């Protein structure tokens, strides 16, 4: 990582002052006058954090051991121990949603990352109109879910789909029914996810590409490396920390989002696009099975945690830092 610009600020200040080392030692010897001041500084944030995150978290823990719909009030809580968790093991819909989540996340995240890498490498070269290209790829990422859902609902329209009209023009005789087909609904959502996320991945990759020293490429050129060899031996290895970052945050993000699915398919046709996050939403806010929704959320948390730890281990073995 490059030296932070603010470090240059040291020089104008230090000459007239005692050497920095003495300053630091003096500070350590006499601890800050009032340590309660520290609590005062974090208090506003900590208070909100306790109320809006810790308290709900504790509640989510408790209620996952209960049978409860919110309508019957606090008195309606019925403690059932691990009942929700054993129910969930027998719940075919839960396993189905887990499988759908794996398909959705497993395809959309790597494809988005790959697309972002391709776009970034191309944009890092001397292409005419780079600024405009970057904007074009980035716009979907800053578009809100509802607008994305709206435009794709129309593009996938069962009768008038402009997309399918275009495909027919290209010679595809029987284009997919997209959201109306239980086979194609999931791919349809994955296409949207890649379209919406590639620009973000590209921006992150572009920042990483700028950190790769041009000397490496010059040396490779002198040795007569082809562009594929340059990519395989320099670019790709040096981008692995970024790739892992995008995969991990991508998996976490994609497994949690349910807005687009709520908007476009409501989990259907049948249960073809009911992913775990949407199943949780349904249990909580459509069936009012709060205890069960909380139990499902914990399972999801465990899954995300395991996946993160696993990727982290893989990363430690594979990542190249410059």
């Amino acid at each position, binding site marked *: 990582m490059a030296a932070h610009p603010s470090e240059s*600020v*040291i020089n104008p*200040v230090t000459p007239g002052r005692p050497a920095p080392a003495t*300053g*630091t030692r003096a500070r350590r010897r006499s601890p*800050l006058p009032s340590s309660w*001041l*520290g609590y005062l*500084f*974090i208090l*506003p944030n900590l*208070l*909100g*954090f306790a*109320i*809006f995150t*810790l308290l*709900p*978290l504790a*509640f989510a823990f408790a209620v996952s051991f209960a049978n409860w719909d*919110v309508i019957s009030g606090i008195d309606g809580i019925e403690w059932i121990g691990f009942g929700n968790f054993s129910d969930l093991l027998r719940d075919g819909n839960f396993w189905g949603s887990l499988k759908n989540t794996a398909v959705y996340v497993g395809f959309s995240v790597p494809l988005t990352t790959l697309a972002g890498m391709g*776009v970034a490498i191309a944009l890092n*070269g*001397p292409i*005419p*109109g780079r600024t405009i290209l970057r*904007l*074009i790829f*980035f*716009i979907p990422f800053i578009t*809100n*879910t*509802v*607008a994305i859902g709206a*435009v794709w609902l*129309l593009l996938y329209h069962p009768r*008038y789909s*402009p997309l399918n*009209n275009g495909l027919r023009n290209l010679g595809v005789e029987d284009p997919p029914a997209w959201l109306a087909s239980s086979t194609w609904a999931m791919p349809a959502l994955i296409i949207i996810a890649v379209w919406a996320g*590639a620009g973000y991945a590209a921006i*992150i990759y572009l*920042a990483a590409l700028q950190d790769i*020293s041009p000397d*490496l490429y010059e040396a*490779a050129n002198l*040795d007569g490396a082809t562009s594929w*060899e340059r990519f395989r031996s320099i670019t790709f290895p040096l981008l692995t920390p970024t790739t892992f*970052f*995008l995969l991990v945050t991508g998996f976490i993000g994609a497994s*949690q*989002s*349910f807005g687009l699915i709520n*908007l476009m398919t409501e989990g259907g046709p049948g249960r073809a696009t009911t992913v775990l996050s949407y199943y*949780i939403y349904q249990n*909580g*806010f459509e069936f009012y099975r*709060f205890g069960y*929704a909380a139990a499902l*959320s914990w399972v999801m948390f465990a899954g995300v945690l395991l996946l*993160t730890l696993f990727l982290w281990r893989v990363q430690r073995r594979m990542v190249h830092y410059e």
Partner: protein
Amino acid sequence: MVAATPPHVGASRFKGRFRRRREGTSAVMDRGTIIRWVVVALLMWLVAMLFLAPFAWMVASSLKREIDVFRFPIRWIPEPVTWANYTEVWTGTYPLTKYIGNSLLVAVARVVGELFTASLAAYAFARMQFRGRNAIFVLYLATLIIPHQLLLVPRFILYREIGIYDTLWALILPGIFTVFGTFLLRQFFMTIPQELSDAARVDGANDWQIYWRIILPLAKPALASLAILAFVWSWNDYETPLVMLVSEANFTVPLGLTRYIDEGGGFSAALIMAGSVSSVLPVVVIFLILQRQFIAALARSGLKG
């Protein structure tokens, strides 16, 4: 930075692995290179046009009469151009102006509040000594990977109990006290040289003055990053309002937009597209104006996290 990278790393790795071609020709483009460059550029523009197509179609349809929206082949430049869709979605049955007001209120309140509480806490975590500081910070970090879903149900219940369910406070309050903002700013504050605070302390400044007069002015890029990200996330958030709001008077832009989708047959495709364009436009404008800061914000939120 270039000088800091050991140049031999690349050189040694390649030495002997590739046949040496004409030495010193790397600066001159031969014909193969030029052809490849043209192909890559053309391909890139083609892919970009495909990426742009849904958005272009959205804009074009928003300016068409309803009967022209699905006409094929697609007319990318509408004829005749009509602004009636925009008049309807801005001032009609479900007026976007109202939703935009709500969205702006929520986003501004969140940004201001988050900048304040997060920068204060970040200063304490980065610069002050007190018992339990590290334990609290670890607790903060641990909650970063907790799925949003886990908090949805209990927050819903909590908001009903404390009376902010179905009010804009349900969107504002949790957005003010974020772990992410605290973490982002703390990471930046750590890079500000300790000597600056020490010097100020020798001159008799207290923590509040160091925070307000030294750290905050130096942290402007990080504060701008947080402000941009918080604003855009707040503006685009659909899932929180979906769960927490029921009264149409409180709807934010994304939730208001669903009014044009849900009722299917009752509304027209052209209206939905006009609403969508209106909802995206403010964010695109912010991006165009603050492009450099915006990209820096994303890079910062990502790579240093």
